[in-house]
């Protein structure tokens, strides 16, 4: 009985500490218990590739700064043994930022990464001053280009009342390919960027305050996001983003200006075949967390919120494991579902969180069935247990790799989800199931696999629940509450739900049940 009192006291203390701390943080720091408002956060990765020429290398890449609708949460530039100069401001203005990598000597193919987390502000801020980022090209000052531009400007101005209508008319003229002046201006300029430069120069020559913008469209998670260009014009309160030959101005709502004005997006000394590609990943985070992170608020300095987004992601998953454990306890001890291994369902759920549920289940079915078929073949070859299981694991890795290669070949979205982590978990699962097959036969494998999968799917739902994720991330002390619940379930000595079915035949024929002692 003494241990029971101890346990009760412990449970009570854990509940008090867990709930008390959470409540204190809520009151004192003001973290809401329910994440009412969520803002998207984009992780954008710029990958710079080039062939180094065996001489000193210096790479500078223009990077985005603070913008009216979007802010920079944090950034990093991962590149092995390169000196790295973060976020150099070439002028006072935040709109000009670049990152510089340098190395004494490099040879062969080089890859440099710049990663930035961008969040959407809940309220737009005014940032753009009256800046003059671009000047008219010398070529447009006199000569045939100047004449052609002047004639187009005159024609457009004849029918326009303000900047917006002027740009619309000008682009209307540009759209006419047979116009003599347009042909003069376009001579040899086929790329979208070159054409937008033409638009920029004409707009500047017409006396408007304009500059070139390279932007990314912020959307869904994607591996290749094109960097597009446009011309930004502003006059007093009014501003528009225009594209060569397009009458309607571009909606700026979902655009992230990567570079404004500026000479070049990317400058590489000591390298050739330079390429830059952009990848994007979007996630929804509670507004409060993002704001705290953005402001690097001191109140948050004792919480997980001042870690980088990547670290936060890692801890976010880690903190959900106790909930998975709770699901396992409930399913095994209260419901009575048979699973293979106590924590295999949690690991499976974590793998599913990485791959998403449906691809994860498909992958599981494929890998496990092929793995078990290989196992049954190998067992005919008279191999000892450990070499046999090891062989199965290698085959599983092979399946996963070919899955990835095929996925990459046919551009399936699944390829990036098959990472090291699920691979290890699935390989290990096949190992366990093989042993189970050897020990208890196929029917037990079927029973325990379906049980494990059921628990894993429920754990996946619980561990992927965004409200729960938010709560435990902002109030980690709630884990004490989970611990208290698990401890109190540990005392449960009643019947399992499955036993209500197992022992049902006992009462079938209405015999003298319970009459015997």
């Amino acid at each position: 009985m003494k241990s029971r009192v101890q346990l009760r006291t412990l449970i009570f203390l854990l509940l008090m500490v867990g709930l008390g701390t959470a409540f204190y943080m809520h009151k004192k720091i003001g973290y809401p218990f329910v994440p009412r408002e969520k803002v998207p956060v984009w992780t954008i990765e710029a990958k710079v590739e080039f062939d180094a020429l065996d001489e000193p290398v210096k790479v500078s890449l223009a990077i985005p700064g603070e913008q009216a609708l979007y802010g920079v949460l944090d950034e990093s530039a991962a590149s092995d043994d390169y000196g790295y100069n973060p976020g150099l401001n070439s002028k006072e203005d935040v709109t000009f930022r670049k990152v510089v990598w340098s190395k004494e000597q490099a040879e062969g193919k080089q890859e440099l990464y710049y990663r930035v987390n961008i969040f959407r502000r809940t309220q737009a801020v005014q940032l753009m001053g009256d800046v003059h980022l671009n000047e008219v090209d010398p070529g447009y000052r006199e000569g045939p280009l100047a004449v052609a531009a002047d004639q187009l400007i005159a024609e457009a101005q004849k029918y326009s009342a303000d900047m917006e209508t002027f740009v619309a008319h000008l682009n209307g003229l540009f759209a006419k390919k047979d116009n003599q002046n347009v042909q003069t201006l376009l001579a040899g300029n086929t790329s979208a960027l070159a054409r937008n430069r033409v638009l920029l120069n004409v707009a500047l020559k017409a006396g408007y305050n304009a500059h070139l913008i390279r932007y990314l469209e912020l959307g869904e998670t994607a591996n290749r996001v094109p960097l597009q260009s446009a011309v930004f014009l502003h006059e007093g309160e009014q501003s528009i983003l225009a594209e060569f030959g397009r009458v309607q101005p571009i909606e700026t709502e979902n655009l992230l200006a990567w570079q404004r004005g500026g000479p070049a997006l990317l400058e590489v000394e000591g390298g050739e075949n330079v390429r830059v590609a952009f990848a994007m990943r979007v996630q929804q985070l509670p507004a409060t967390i993002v704001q705290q992170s953005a402001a690097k608020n001191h109140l948050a300095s004792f919480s997980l919120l001042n870690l980088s987004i990547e670290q936060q992601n890692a801890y976010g998953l880690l903190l959900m494991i106790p909930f998975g454990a709770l699901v396992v306890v409930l399913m095994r001890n209260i419901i009575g579902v048979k699973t293979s291994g106590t924590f295999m369902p949690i690991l499976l759920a974590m793998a599913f969180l990485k791959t998403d549920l449906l691809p994860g289940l498909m992958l599981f079915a494929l890998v496990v069935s092929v793995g078990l078929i290989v196992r049954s073949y190998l067992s005919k070859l008279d191999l000892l247990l450990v070499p046999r299981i090891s062989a199965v694991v290698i085959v599983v890795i092979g399946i996963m790799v070919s899955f990835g290669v095929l996925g990459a070949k046919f551009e399936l979205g699944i390829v990036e989800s098959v990472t090291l982590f699920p691979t290890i978990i699935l390989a290990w699962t096949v190992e366990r199931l093989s042993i189970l097959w050897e020990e208890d036969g196929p029917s037990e494998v079927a029973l325990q696999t379906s049980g494990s999968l059921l628990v894993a799917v429920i754990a996946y739902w619980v561990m992927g629940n965004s409200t729960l994720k938010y709560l435990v991330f902002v109030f980690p002390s709630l884990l004490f509450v989970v611990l208290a619940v698990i401890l109190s379930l540990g005392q449960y000595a009643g019947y399992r739900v499955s036993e209500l079915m197992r022992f049902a035949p006992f009462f079938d024929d209405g015999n003298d049940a319970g009459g015997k002692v």
Partner: protein
Amino acid sequence: MLFSPNHWCRPSQLRAAGILGMNRRNGHYIARYNRRELYPRVDDKLKTKLLAKQFGLQVPELYGVVGRQSDVSNLAQKLEGREQFVIKPTQGSAGKGILVVTGREGHEFLKPSGERVVMRDVRRHVNNTLSGLYSLGGRNDKAMIEYAIEFSDAFDGFSYQGVPDIRVVVFQGFPVMAMMRLSTAASDGKANLHQGAVGVGIDLVTGRASRAVQYGRRVDVHPDTGRSLSELVVPDWQPLMELAAQSYEMTELGYLGVDIVLDKSKGPLLLELNARPGLAIQVANHAGLSPRLELIERLSRHDRTMMRAEGRIAFSQEKFC
């Protein structure tokens, strides 16, 4: 089907019948009465056998042990002159990895199913055993060669292949419930109730069958041989009960499953012990374990510890019939 009311019962029914559930068995009886460090005494069959010898309990005679891969080469020498024998892993579970040889013909070994194997197969079986193929968690293991039981004529027609054994649940040295396990074609000759063996509840006083179940449902005849199970009587019942009850002193495990076989000439032999005996015995006997266990728990400590095996058996036979 699954959700029809016939397939379910209410917790109150289970409580009224005194059915012991898995959670209570684990949390109350096994955790409290079975000390962890004593488990090797039952999980390692070689240890069990040696210990039983010290306590003078009857076990199948040990012919030899193969402990290392290098010993496998002189296996033939060890089996020299043995017409009948059993090879089993010392840490196997649920009857896995047991090779029974009932006779020899030239260089061939005969299995009870009539199948013939050669020395090469026996060696491979021992190799697999040593590498842990049949053992809990795949640990390296040893192989025991022991006396092959000639089972008593009393069970003719009650078993399809395999040796029928008697499981007695012993709590604090008191036999509380007994069941006979008969292998069937469905159970592949194994005496495992999950796999379809028939469980027969046995009266603690007389050794007579009280009722029988297969897959949790009542049966009256053996599904393969058609013999009426109510005719089943276990001979040598009193010595068998003594063997079960004395296993408590030997293992010091409070909640114990004792598996006993009846040999034609040697009588009851202790086959193996289990520190986590299953709950199906309740269905076979159509009685719950809880009231019996609680009755013993209510005995004073003095009564419990001072009683000898005979006294405990007498107590059980008086109260639990």
